[in-house]
């Protein structure tokens, strides 16, 4: 503990510092990167991923993992589209009911995930991997492969209406992020997630109903996946089986880059916000500076490694798997 800033403080802010360095880096190569309009674009592309990543953060805090988000997002997106159109296809009419119903759908998917994992005693990696297949399959079954357009101007206003240069959906995502933070820090469930992640057998011995906490955690994640699905539909106006594609690796990478440990117990939604922004800034920045397409996957990989290295407390980790 010598001098300022000391190690602990530095580590705590390391992910944010990495984000700032990345932004400076891209700005130096292409000044147009640093503009409010581009930040809005990054925000739009980050919003759905952020919601999904916040969802999986809760699972990772418990020391578990969830790989079912792609299926869950697809099912939620497609169910939303069906119900929304069935109810008249407009937020102005009864269509708004589709929004809460989608969140319920997400919770139900999470519940199933949690039940399979907890009641059948299958590690979450496997249970959720298999349920991801089921989810994608279910979305496929519902749509028969068709894509459903959502053209309601009121719903699309999430993307098209802007306040202070940012679309409405960014503010909605912000609200849900705050909700996530609130759940994480001010509710019993949120704190119990940390307890389970910090030491499951100990928590059980303390009289905590760990099975219930786990199932609730998966349900909570499911609700956030549903929000992510709504954002994804709002962004491109299409609900389809492929809506969920790509969320799995992006969201888990973002959570790790943000500094939440995969073995559970530390981190949280603010880390995830920074992680998602880091990943989105890299994605946007690589195109903005004109990096050839074939290099992008490799450079993304390198930058992710660097970001994780810079934001990990190397002294506190002994075993990394």
């Amino acid at each position, binding site marked *: 503990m010598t001098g300022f800033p000391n190690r602990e403080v530095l580590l705590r802010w390391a992910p944010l510092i990495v984000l700032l360095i990345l932004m400076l880096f891209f700005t130096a190569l292409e000044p147009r990167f640093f503009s409010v309009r581009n930040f809005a674009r990054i925000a739009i592309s980050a919003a759905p991923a952020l919601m999904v990543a916040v969802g999986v953060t809760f699972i990772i805090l418990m020391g578990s*993992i969830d790989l079912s988000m792609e299926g869950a997002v697809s099912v939620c997106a497609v169910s939303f589209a069906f119900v929304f159109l069935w109810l008249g296809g407009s937020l102005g009419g009864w269509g708004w009911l589709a929004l809460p119903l989608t969140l319920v759908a997400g919770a139900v998917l999470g519940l199933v995930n949690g039940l399979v994992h907890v009641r059948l005693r299958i590690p979450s990696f496997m249970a959720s*991997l298999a349920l991801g297949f089921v989810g994608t399959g279910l979305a*496929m079954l519902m749509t028969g492969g068709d894509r459903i357009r959502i053209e309601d101007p009121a719903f699309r206003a999430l993307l098209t209406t802007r306040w202070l240069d940012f679309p409405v959906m960014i503010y909605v995502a912000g609200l849900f992020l705050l909700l996530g933070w609130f759940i994480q820090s001010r509710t019993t469930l949120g704190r119990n997630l940390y307890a389970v992640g910090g030491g499951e057998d100990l928590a059980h011995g303390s009289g905590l109903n760990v099975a219930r906490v786990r199932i609730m955690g998966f349900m909570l994640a499911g609700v956030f996946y549903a929000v992510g699905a709504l954002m994804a539909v709002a962004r491109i106006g299409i609900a389809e089986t492929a809506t969920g594609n790509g969320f799995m*690796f992006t969201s888990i990478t973002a959570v790790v880059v943000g500094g939440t440990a995969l073995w559970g117990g530390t981190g949280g939604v603010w880390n995830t916000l920074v992680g998602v922004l880091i990943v989105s800034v890299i994605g946007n920045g690589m195109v903005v500076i004109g990096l050839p397409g074939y290099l992008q996957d490799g450079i993304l990989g390198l930058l992710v*490694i660097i970001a*994780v290295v810079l934001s990990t407390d190397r002294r506190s980790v002994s075993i990394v798997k």
Partner: protein
Amino acid sequence: MTLHQLKPHFPWITLLALVAVVGVAHPNFLLPANLISMVADIMPLFIMALGMTFAIYIGGIDLSSQSVANMTTVLATIALPGLGLGAALVCILAGLTMGAVSGFVTTRLLVPSFVSTLAVGGIAYSVAQYLSGQRALYMDVTLRDASFGWMIGSSFGIPHEIVVGAALLALTWFLQSRTVFGRALKAVGAGEPAAAASGLPVRRIKVLAFALSGMLAAIAGLLFSAKLSGGSPTLANGFLLPAIVAVLVGGTPLTGGVGGVINTLIGTLIVAVIRSSMLYFEVDATMQQMVFGIILIVAIAATIDRSKMRIVK
């Protein structure tokens, strides 16, 4: 025999039960020629799963396998005209290197393997795209047959892919259960702190496990490339999840130290049978994925040995 004693044999039993279910409904399925051809076709996937077994055995995961295999299909196709059989060596070395890099990033830079291998996979994919000029390439058939023909021919009714797979299985089984490295691997998987306190070079062992995984992924790509007589940066797409599923269904859980290469063989065959059964039972196209997921849950619930898992995470 009690249920407890029966547990280690659940993967076998599940496999036989699945085969029986399909076979009773469709006796065609049990024709030896058909079974042999099914096993031969699953071999590239099996070889990748063999590699994955080592990563999962030490409690990690290797998400780069598919990209490494993609990369080697391109490498093999490009290197074949100049190097002949030497192309195989190039591929194997490239896979080994990629795996070692994953291992280095995981053990030295302390990046969890879920992310480090994903990132290294991105690098391999970029290499594949760059080398291929972002096109699908094909091998000259005579050149292929001269250098790689032995991999894909057939003797006495047994396709050589099976021979290659069996040889690698025997080799990895020997490595796993009869060598110092295999023993060390088990110790690291089952009790890393104790392994370290016994003076084992834990990091080096882990790097080797990832390198082995990369190498086997490369061999899988090479075999696939020879079989398809070409290469492309997307040729091996779709290998990754089935390979992971094969390892897990076989009974090597992510907790490490349990299971092994024989389990992976069974797991791969279970995946192959489930996949074929979709066709035999004429499962509707839009339902296949869902049915696959549900059977998977049932299979995993049946095969995993929970007695070795203290906490189910």
